């Protein structure tokens, strides 16, 4: 499994929002550009419900909001960065979240979903990769870094 197989250039952004809610909404809007997603409201509710159960700030400045939802066949991924860190995004090590990877998977794609989550965690744990990503000046550069980090 490779990151570049699931990263879409159109679903990458430099985040404008300053707090968690705005950042998540920004990424939801981005991810809803995918034709497979029909109901934005459903995605929004599911993402925020999951965050209410436990924040997806997994440490080392990474946030991975993720859900599985009915009616989607492939894995849809949106990536955003916020150099200053996202306010209000609780993490297990208290390091502010600077990279947010939003994952939306099909309800029955359990194996793929778990594998991809694992891939994201292992890739972004690498300090060098993380530093490069955070320093990206624009979406294009961010995309290049992401797909070349295999």
């Amino acid at each position, binding site marked *: 499994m490779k990151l570049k197989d699931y990263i879409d250039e159109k679903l990458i952004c430099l985040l404008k929002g300053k707090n968690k809610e705005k950042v998540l909404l920004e990424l939801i809007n981005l991810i809803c550009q995918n034709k497979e997603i029909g109901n934005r409201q459903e995605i929004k509710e599911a993402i925020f419900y999951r965050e209410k159960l436990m924040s*997806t700030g997994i440490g080392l400045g990474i946030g991975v909001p993720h859900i599985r939802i009915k009616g989607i066949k492939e894995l849809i991924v949106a990536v955003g960065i916020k150099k200053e860190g996202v306010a209000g995004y609780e993490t297990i090590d208290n390091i502010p979240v600077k990279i947010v990877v939003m994952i939306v998977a099909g309800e029955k794609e359990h194996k793929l979903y778990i594998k991809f989550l694992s891939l994201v965690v292992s890739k972004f744990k690498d300090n060098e990769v993380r530093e490069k990503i955070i320093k990206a000046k624009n979406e294009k550069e961010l995309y290049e870094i992401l797909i070349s980090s295999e």
Partner: protein
Amino acid sequence: MVNESRLNILMLIGLTVLLGTAGARLFKKFRVPQVMAFILIGFFLGDSALGIINKELLFSFSSFNIFVLGIIGFLIGGELKKEIFEKYGKQFVNILLAEGLLAFVLVTLLVVLLGNLFFENTAFVWALGLLLGAIAAATAPAATTDVLWEYKTRGPLTTTILGIVGLDDGLSLLLFAAASSVTFGIMGRGETGISQIFLRIIYDSGGSVVIGAIGGLFLSLIVRKISDKYGIITFSLGIIVLILGISKLLKCDTLLSAMTAGVFITNYIPRKSREVFELINELTPSLYVLFFTFFGAQINLTNLTFPIMLLSFVYLIGRTTGKGLGANLGARISKAPKTVQKYLPWCLFSQASTAIGLSILSLQRFPGEIGNSIVVIITTTTFIVQIIGPLAIRIAITGAGEAGLNITEEDIIRESKAKDIMDATIPLIFENMSLTEILKIFGQTDNLYYPVVNENKKLLGVITVDHIKNSLMTSGLDTFLLAYDLMEPVIAKTSPDLPMIEVQEILNRYNLEYLPVISAENKVLGFLEKRQISRKISTRLIELQKQAESLG
């Protein structure tokens, strides 16, 4: 004309089956054995009440009655395995002789004592006493076994009842042959000597046993080679009917012949014969409805006079006391289990076709007052004991703790609902539980599937051992994965009151291994796992088997 008559018969059969079955269902609500409903409805359709089922129709069904009795005899024979004879053989003989002979003696004496007050002719009174005494020894196998099968009984009392009711008709026939001979003598029409009576008895019982054994051997050889159930059932029915026909032709005892065939195949091909008996047994409910309803219809209570009413009363007292005391005495002598000693006396009240048949034979052999009186007394008392008898058996088998012990896996499934089988102690996994917490729960229980619920315990999904395996194989996720992330959607769920048959249909239809049981508010009440359903049913069957064995 012929067509019209046939149509009427068909209509009557349809009406009888429908009313009988509807009545039985109604009676079941009041926990009354179905056989009583059949007989009462038959009685109201018969000549004594509405007159819808008349004598001509009943006569045309005489062969059908022999057939049903033959089927019953065959099934009773199937219960009498070699081990049963070895274990209960002595007990059967003791009880049979005690209850049969005591009923014979008491009825004879009481009828003679009371008869002397009404009739001047002593010979007539003794003849009446002896013949009624002989008839009193018989117990109706059909009505008795129907109650046992309806309540799915198993245990020493059930085995003893089956052994006794299958054999005491034979004793009654022997006593009747002897009583007839004595009656011929005392009435001055001595035609038969003692030696001839014994020859007749040996011919009757020996002939029946030989016919039954040969039929049983043929049936064993045939069914051993076939495996399809249609083949088994048609060959079995064909041979049973042939056995009955030959017995009738040679004037042997049809019930004893069919019973011998049953005994033969259950001991000669024990494993294969189970299939034969199960298939034949499936036929009996529909046959019983007609058999007992027609039986009820032939009861005629229109010729009751005061002396006959009194004689009927003392016949009942003598027979009930004789059978009750005799059964208890026989059970004590043979050191039968306490439940048999206590409850068997309540199980031998029913009298039916053998008694009616012998009363009709009395009318043929002794036309006039003796024959007529016997027919009316037997008809009247049969009506009473057929109403009381099944009820007494139900009370006895329940008291002995044998009801419901003879059930199969299918019976348990048929009679259970989801709530009876579900695992109500399944641990709930809350949606915000971490992988570490989930693993802790998995370690404490042996389930393969767990319901995932929200804080209000409403069902959201299911976590399987497979999901956890996938998550464990990937690293770095244990800190942030929750049950919510790992659960799979619920494809189907059930209410607690759904019958298990329908639960199994759902499991098969969706190819599922589990089914959550939920309330109307979607709260988890329990969980059904396919492998645990089988385990639970097997455990229940073993429990029932042990319970039956512990009774004796």
